[in-house]
């Protein structure tokens, strides 16, 4: 008779009570899995949005540029840097950008604008700007035209085929002034971007600012965000000062803080949920011990060592929790899979908030294994803590009193 066999049979001697206890764990786990899945699905979606909307998974730039985003602090993109990054395992695409400000004019109207020089082909693997083209067409490689964001275009009263004047200061103080035909109008989900963005080919942009072969940043994409830590380690080892490499979370600390705050809220809710589950299990264990006190006394009386008795009771406790957790995890899989494939569509103010943040108004679910095994680990931990009680009882049982129970 091994410990697990006896514990298993003991578990089912009061099958209804065991089933009720397991059911409390089952529903607790389903709720927790669904909540965790929704949280992590939302985080993944937010990160994906941020990464694919602008920052990429990582960027290389001059350390001085990070402190002061002037065109004089841009970096030279050498073949050596390009080759090093491209050959880093896990990196799928790189896209260079040159970013600065200029005055945009049309007839008698002038407004400050952000000029973003991009590689039209490579950029499509990062932010896919082409999908925001509302009118006209996307840039071609070496294109001498520009894409203007919708609010800026409206303000300047320009349209496809019109010409825009850009006037500003280029690299090391050269005057940057030129005329550019408008190829397309961009409409982003973020009003802030719609007010000020002008996109052009990076070669055209470098010539305009007199910054030949200079870029403000080299954007890096990886296939799977789980590869990012390894990619970052490798790049940090190979990229030398004054250049530096930063991942999306270093570039967007406010997003990380927001996720951390939300995660902390989720942890608090789950603590309450699991406390309810824990007290359910604990109640059952107290009942189980008090009902069997005489039997425990007899078993020790006839020669079972207390540690073996403790082992049986501990196993029963852990089995109760783990069986409930396993059934909860199995039960939650179809629910999570359904919502993974059919994200919850938000409506009203919540939807508008998401749209304003440049995100789709959908609540995504995650199918990450972490979502599931985390619950099993939590329930295991809870049962181990609760399991201390029967172990204590086994070691402190007074046999003569137990026999009279």
């Amino acid at each position, binding site marked *: *008779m091994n410990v697990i066999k006896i514990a298993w*049979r003991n578990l089912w001697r009061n099958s209804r009570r065991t089933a009720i206890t397991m059911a409390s764990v089952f529903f607790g786990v389903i709720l927790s899995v669904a909540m965790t899945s929704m949280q992590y699905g939302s985080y993944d979606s937010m990160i994906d949005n941020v990464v694919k909307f602008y920052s990429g998974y990582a960027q290389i730039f001059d350390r001085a540029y990070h402190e002061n985003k002037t065109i004089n602090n841009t970096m030279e993109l050498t073949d050596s840097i390009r080759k090093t990054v491209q050959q880093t395992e896990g990196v799928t695409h790189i896209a260079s950008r040159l970013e600065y400000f200029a005055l945009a004019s049309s007839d008698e109207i002038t407004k400050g604008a952000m000029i973003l020089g991009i590689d039209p082909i490579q950029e499509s693997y990062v932010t896919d700007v082409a999908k925001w083209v509302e009118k006209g067409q996307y840039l071609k490689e070496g294109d001498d035209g520009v894409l203007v964001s919708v609010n800026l275009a409206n303000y300047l009263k320009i349209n496809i085929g019109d010409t825009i004047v850009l006037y500003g200061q280029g690299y090391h103080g050269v005057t940057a002034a030129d005329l550019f035909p408008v190829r397309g109008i961009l409409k982003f989900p973020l009003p802030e971007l719609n007010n000020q963005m002008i996109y052009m080919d990076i070669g055209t942009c470098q010539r305009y600012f007199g910054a030949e072969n200079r870029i403000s940043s080299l954007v890096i994409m990886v296939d799977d965000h789980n590869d990012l830590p390894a990619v970052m380690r490798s790049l940090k080892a190979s990229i030398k000062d004054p250049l530096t490499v930063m991942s999306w979370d270093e570039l967007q600390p406010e997003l990380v803080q927001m996720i951390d705050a939300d995660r902390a809220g989720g942890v608090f809710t789950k603590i309450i949920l699991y406390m309810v589950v824990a007290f359910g299990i604990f109640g059952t264990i107290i009942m189980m011990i008090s009902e069997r006190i*005489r*039997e425990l006394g007899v078993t020790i*009386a006839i*020669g079972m060592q*207390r540690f073996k008795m403790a082992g049986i009771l501990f196993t029963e406790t852990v089995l109760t929790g783990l069986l409930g957790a396993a059934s909860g995890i199995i039960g939650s899989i179809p629910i999570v899979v359904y919502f993974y494939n059919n994200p919850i569509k938000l409506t009203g103010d919540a939807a508008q908030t998401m749209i304003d943040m440049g995100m789709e108004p959908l609540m995504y679910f995650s199918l990450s294994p972490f979502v599931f095994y985390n619950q099993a680990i939590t329930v295991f931990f809870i049962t181990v803590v609760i399991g201390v009680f029967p172990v204590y009882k086994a070691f402190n049982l007074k046999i*003569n009193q137990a026999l009279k129970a």
Partner: protein
Amino acid sequence: MKVIEIKDLVKIYNSSEVQVKAVNGINLDFEEGEFAAVVGPSGSGKTTFLNMVGGLDRPTSGEVIVGGTNIWELKSRKLIDFRLRNIGFVFQAYNLIPVLTARENVEFIMHLQGRDKHERNQRVNELLTAVGLGERMESRPSKLSGGQQQRVAVARALASKPKFILADEPTANLDSKSTENLLDMMEKLNKEENITFIFSTHDARVVKKARRVITLDDGKVTSDEKK
């Protein structure tokens, strides 16, 4: 040959205001092969006495020496192991493990002793056949009558090949027929295998079968008769 020596055994229970001497200076010896009954009115100290002899309840003072070992000098784990290898118990309420079959209940104690499977199987078959339950080996306690459960309890007590068996009112919950059968079976085992049995009892039928009757009153031995 002496199996048990009991010297100046005392058990005092301290309640809030009064001290109760449940066992008050008992000196007794038990020889191998005895079939002894400890009798006396309720509260005379029978169960307390048996519990102290069986290593279940620590005496306030005195010694219980089994095979040269003062069992109350043993540490907790050693004492449990000593009980496992030297003492068999039969309780009033049978106290079988409900989730184990009759076979498993008897086998359980040998499992704790670390006996191999072949030996366990052989002894379980012998014992359950000897107590007349060869056909009910795979039944769980809930499927057995009180008499049958007590037979399994006796088989379990014998399974460890103990030096002696302590039976606390073993017939208290049994009907006449079951009592008769159980006593016959225990008497047979006592005679054929020379196993020492010590009962605490109120039951006149047990007293009648016993070859030694020790009477307790107020925790003291008032008579010790050998038939």
